[in-house]
């Protein structure tokens, strides 16, 4: 079954972002659509994308394999990506990673038997002020994770079981300076001063 057949408007919108004759630029947004919908990009989807961008499956695969957020094998409904770079390591990301693997009883490339979780080590997520943190699937960041917060989050994901994300604020505050004062700031929907 084709993925893009009934998404022609979306495909046209994506292609319209780039100059005529430069369809190839659409490879990343197209890969992203598939990855988000199916949790990975199969060979069949690679071929479909190649046809849209007037390229070959080999070329699409070579681009796909360059980046860390596309996957060629299925991931869990909650794909947990833990930042391992120094600012996070200084806040305990190594221990958090070990704990996560032990608790879920999986390693890189595995999916838990209920299909819920997979794990991946990633590099600096650009949120070093709220370490340690992880990104879940192509959704938000879960920041300043203590063992307690992580356990609560895993329990929440398990209870949902469908890949949906909690509505509550997943972010953690950082500080900013406002006219001579230090202010805590939260950048969630409905930012709070």
């Amino acid at each position, binding site marked *: 079954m084709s993925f893009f057949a009934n998404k022609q408007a979306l495909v046209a919108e994506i292609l319209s*972002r*780039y100059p005529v004759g*430069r369809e*190839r*630029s659409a*490879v*990343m*947004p197209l890969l*992203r659509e598939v990855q988000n919908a199916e949790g990975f990009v199969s060979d069949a989807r690679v071929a479909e994308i190649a046809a849209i*961008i007037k*390229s070959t499956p080999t070329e699409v695969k070579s*681009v796909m394999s*360059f*980046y*860390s*957020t*596309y996957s060629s094998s299925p991931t869990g409904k909650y794909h947990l990506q833990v930042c*391992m*770079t*120094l*600012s996070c*390591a*200084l*806040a*305990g*990301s*190594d*221990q*958090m990673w070990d*704990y996560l693997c032990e608790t879920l009883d999986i390693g890189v490339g595995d999916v838990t038997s209920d299909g819920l979780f997979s794990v991946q080590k990633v*590099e*600096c*997520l*650009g*949120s*070093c*002020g709220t*370490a*340690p943190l992880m*990104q879940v699937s*192509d959704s*938000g960041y879960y920041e300043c994770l*203590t*063992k*307690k*917060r992580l356990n609560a989050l895993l329990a929440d994901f398990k209870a949902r079981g469908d890949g949906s994300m909690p509505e509550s604020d997943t972010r953690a505050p*950082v*500080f*900013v*300076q*406002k*006219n*001579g004062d*230090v*202010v805590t*700031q939260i*950048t969630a929907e409905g*930012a*709070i*001063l």
Partner: protein
Amino acid sequence: MTAVAEVVSPEKPKSITSGLDPRFKPRLYEHVGQNNSWTLEYALRHGAYEGAKKALAGTPESVQDEVKKAGLRGRGGAGFPTGVKWSFMPKEDGKPHYLVCNADESEPGTYKDRYLMEADPHQLLEGMLIGMHAIRANVGYIYIRGEYILGANRLNAAIAEARAAGILGENALGFGKSMEVHVHRGAGAYICGEETALMNSLEGLRANPRLKPPFPAQAGIFGMPSTVNNVVSIASAALIMRHGADWFSSMGTEKSKGNFLFHISGPIKRPGVYELPLGTTYREIIYTWGGGPTEPIKAFNPGGSSTPMLPFTDEILDMQADYENCAAKGTFLGTGGIILIPQNCDIVNMMYNYVRFYGHESCGKCTPCREGIGTWMNRIFQKLISGKGDPNDVKILEDLFGNIKGKSFCLLADSCIMPVQSAMKLFRDEFEYIAQHGKPMYTGYGNRWKDE
């Protein structure tokens, strides 16, 4: 507190070099943390697009000149003057031109672009209009790292609002010119922040850096003249057009002008992004604003992991943070992302974290970086850390530095060597200790994860 004397001419008011100066007012982050700050309605209420209107009413050269006069230097790390970069673009070549905003923000320790895009996307869009006018471009791309999902969503929503309001589109802001901005999401690769790799990524190729020349201003994306600027450089241009070059250059030291986003990570009481004038001392940034470290510190990277470390001494803390002072100390102001290096953590373990990062992010195009960092340096660090090292390993590492730095295709390799080399210079005893004794001199890198 400030040890560095300033040259003050009698007729000119003293320039602002402290966030405590009552004349200083944060502007880049003025709206960060305010409810609905990302909506067009909020932005228009706070003066958004007034700067773009001024810019579009003038010639591209007049915009370049205003930004040159302000003294704005690129905030992506290298510090190249933004107005000068814009003036490299050809004039009447009949080709399409492109402005590319570099929002890849993947340099470890760096997290300033993120909150700006999430909270104030219209400030960035206004800067895009200004930059596009200055380089005669009708199309702009914002290349945002794939993980910044909220940022991408907010930008896309802001673009849709701006289009509906006639700010973008066929007759942008009513000046009779077509101006479009598109968001392109990355997918997790540090090298995409390097401007030529970014261009390949945007063209749907593997993100290997390109050979220069040709420079982007001659042949950039799609083979057309292009300029790549960082998020904060572009947002700063919006503020310069709104408030004037004189406002911008009233802040900072003699050669380093304007407001700057310092941000701190590692063991600090108040991690955060502090908008301060250039020339603020590291002591003020780390203690007054950051609240001070939560444990003893021995060094810090001043502007992202790629910048050589500075020792945590009184002399350095009293130094005014600017491009020139950092250069004089053999490092860079960089992105302003300060990473604190704890005293009781073993430097070899911490540098292995960096080496692992750069090895992982090496694009694999050239041998010194791919094999030198990805294989050799990684293995020697692993050997040292696992207690199997011998004193010769420190020598081999030093040899490797010389064979990689300056001998690789792009700056990613140098970006790895520089901090590691600085660490070895400052803490050679720790390298030699672990090589000799098979165990680290400090053991605090162990369990740092909090239960609650």
